[in-house]
């Protein structure tokens, strides 16, 4: 028992590390765990506990760099703009509190809902999977139409297709492998493009207000439930990430404010992380890098699933406390720091990480993604349309048209 606890704490530590350092993802450490599993001296149960806690804690902590540095990871990209907006208004800690609340309550809600949902998910899985492209097209059309003005609709469609074509080029051709390309794509579309205006702006970061009064539950119930449900859906359906889940949650909750949005997006991310382990048991498929590693280490039956959920809840509780503590620290000290210099340093770090992670080919991908990422703010349309980078390849994949399109472009 003590060894499981020790490995869970190790996982929490690693989750804090991967969450805090932009560009380092949980998946980067998975080969290490797979190698450790091959060694007989490491218990598979302990390693699984470490992986689950690392994966869950990462989803909490990654909101700190995405809020204070504008540096997204997979799953937090849509949170950057609203969190950054709150930061520029002096409410950076509020953004962290909201995401901690969204992550933790969504984790608990997902754990409670697992059993009834399993009865629903397993039969619905095959139906949803075959109709996924229609669901995504429906979401896209609704998003575009909601722009209302003709110019807005035109810009939205153009940004979607530009991002989508960039996604196809980077994720589905021989330029580089898909998982490597995600980092420059997301960092350009949702990171550097958000930070650049701050670098050129003369105003610094305002003094951050640190509120400690409890969050109101009522206005957050709807985005929380929608986020959790969307996270569960994306945790089961292949090829649909937290960002598409967030779009779904946004539509379901009809949330317009940045605060509700943050609760929703964090809920999607954490419930997806938990459900990806449940999917191992329910449908025998791994839906995340961490779930793949757990699936390789151990056979997930009912007993193992209950154990993994227990570890996730324990790690989630601690992660929320760490997130709030680190968030408060960051909020206290960020105002005193030269914000423009920090933004420039983050941009340079992202460029360096891109070269290290994706090679030189990552640079044109990052540059193009940044140029496209600047367009929504200029055209005054939602940045969500940049999610075409993943949505368009997904729609084509589920419609069975991806290879037809790639062949038509001689790719």
């Amino acid at each position, binding site marked *: 028992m003590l060894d499981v606890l020790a490995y869970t704490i190790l996982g929490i530590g690693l989750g804090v590390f991967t969450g805090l350092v932009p560009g380092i993802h949980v998946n980067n450490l998975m080969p290490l765990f797979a190698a450790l599993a091959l060694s007989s001296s490491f218990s598979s149960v302990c390693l699984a506990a470490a992986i689950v806690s690392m994966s869950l804690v990462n989803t909490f902590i990654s909101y700190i760099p995405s809020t204070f540095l504008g540096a997204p990871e997979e799953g937090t990209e849509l949170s950057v703009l609203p969190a950054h907006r709150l930061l520029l208004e002096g409410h950076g800690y509020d953004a962290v509190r909201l995401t901690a609340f969204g992550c933790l309550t969504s984790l608990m809600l997902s754990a409670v809902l697992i059993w009834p949902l399993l009865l629903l998910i397993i039969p619905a899985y095959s139906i949803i999977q075959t109709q996924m492209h229609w669901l995504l097209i429906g979401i896209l059309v609704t998003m575009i139409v909601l722009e209302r003005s003709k110019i807005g609709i035109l810009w939205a469609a153009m940004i979607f297709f530009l991002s989508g074509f960039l996604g196809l*080029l980077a994720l589905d051709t021989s330029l580089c492998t898909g998982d490597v390309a995600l980092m420059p794509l997301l960092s350009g579309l949702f990171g550097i493009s958000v930070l650049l205006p701050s670098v050129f702006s003369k105003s610094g970061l305002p003094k951050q207000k640190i509120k400690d009064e409890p969050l109101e539950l009522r206005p957050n119930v709807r985005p929380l439930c929608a986020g959790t449900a969307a996270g569960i859906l994306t945790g089961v359906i292949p090829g649909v990430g937290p960002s598409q889940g967030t779009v779904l949650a946004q539509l379901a909750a009809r949330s317009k404010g940045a605060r509700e949005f943050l609760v929703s997006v964090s809920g999607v991310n954490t419930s997806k992380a938990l459900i990806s382990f449940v999917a191992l048991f329910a449908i025998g498929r791994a839906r995340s890098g961490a779930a793949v590693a757990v699936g390789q280490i151990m056979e997930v039956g009912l007993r193992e699933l209950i154990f993994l959920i227990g570890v996730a809840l324990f790690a989630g509780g601690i992660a929320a406390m760490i997130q709030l503590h680190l968030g408060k620290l960051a909020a206290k000290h960020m105002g005193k720091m030269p914000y423009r210099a920090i933004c420039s340093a983050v941009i340079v770090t992202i460029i360096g990480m891109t070269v290290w992670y994706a090679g030189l080919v990552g640079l*044109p991908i990052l540059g*193009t993604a940044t140029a496209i990422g600047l*367009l929504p703010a*200029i055209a005054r349309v939602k940045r969500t349309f940049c999610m075409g980078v993943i949505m368009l390849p997904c729609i084509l994949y589920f419609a069975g048209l991806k290879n037809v399109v790639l062949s038509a472009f001689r790719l």
Partner: protein
Amino acid sequence: MSERTIAKLSLLCSLTGLAALYFSAVNAHPAITAIAKLNDDFTGTKITISGRVIDLRNHVDGHLFLTLKDDSGGAISVPVFASVRSQLNEPVELLDVIQVTGLVKEYQNELEIIPDKASDIHIVHTSATRISSLGENQIGELVKVEGVISDRAIVGGGSLILTLSDGGCQLPVYIPASVVKTGLPEVHVGYTIRVDGWLQLYNDNMELQIKDASNIFIIEAA
């Protein structure tokens, strides 16, 4: 700088970047995927593999069914449909090393890679092994040999035994009647041929057995 200028610049950079990436992607050489790494997650994706042809079957409709094995130890089926096969400039032989780019599909619970044009297949022919270098430690293995037919005998049931000579060494090649009947090319004493087959022991002597008529290639007729 006005917002309009920034918008124009951003759009120009986006389009230029996309164009540059597009031309790079069109001319990029795909990375080779290890066959042993392939699993259900690859279904529907386009990948490139490189491996040795360890099995080759012809279909009556002109399709060619290959099995490739690479250094990772994995093996996978590669169906080359008649429309693609007819565009190939050279024949594929057993033990050739070929690089195939194609779509991963699942057929009868097995993964296979389907090339959709001849340019997706690159063939590197391997050279034949000298008969003198064959040893009993290779029994059961697939080998490729070349030589002159020094004897040709029809045995019970219509099977054929050719004796191949190469540098003073001889090797009997056993062609079962079932293969003879499927359109074996006319071969006679004095012909130089190349044969791909499985080395086996018969009455304590090594011989080569071929399993398909396409495993014999005439290099020079007498």
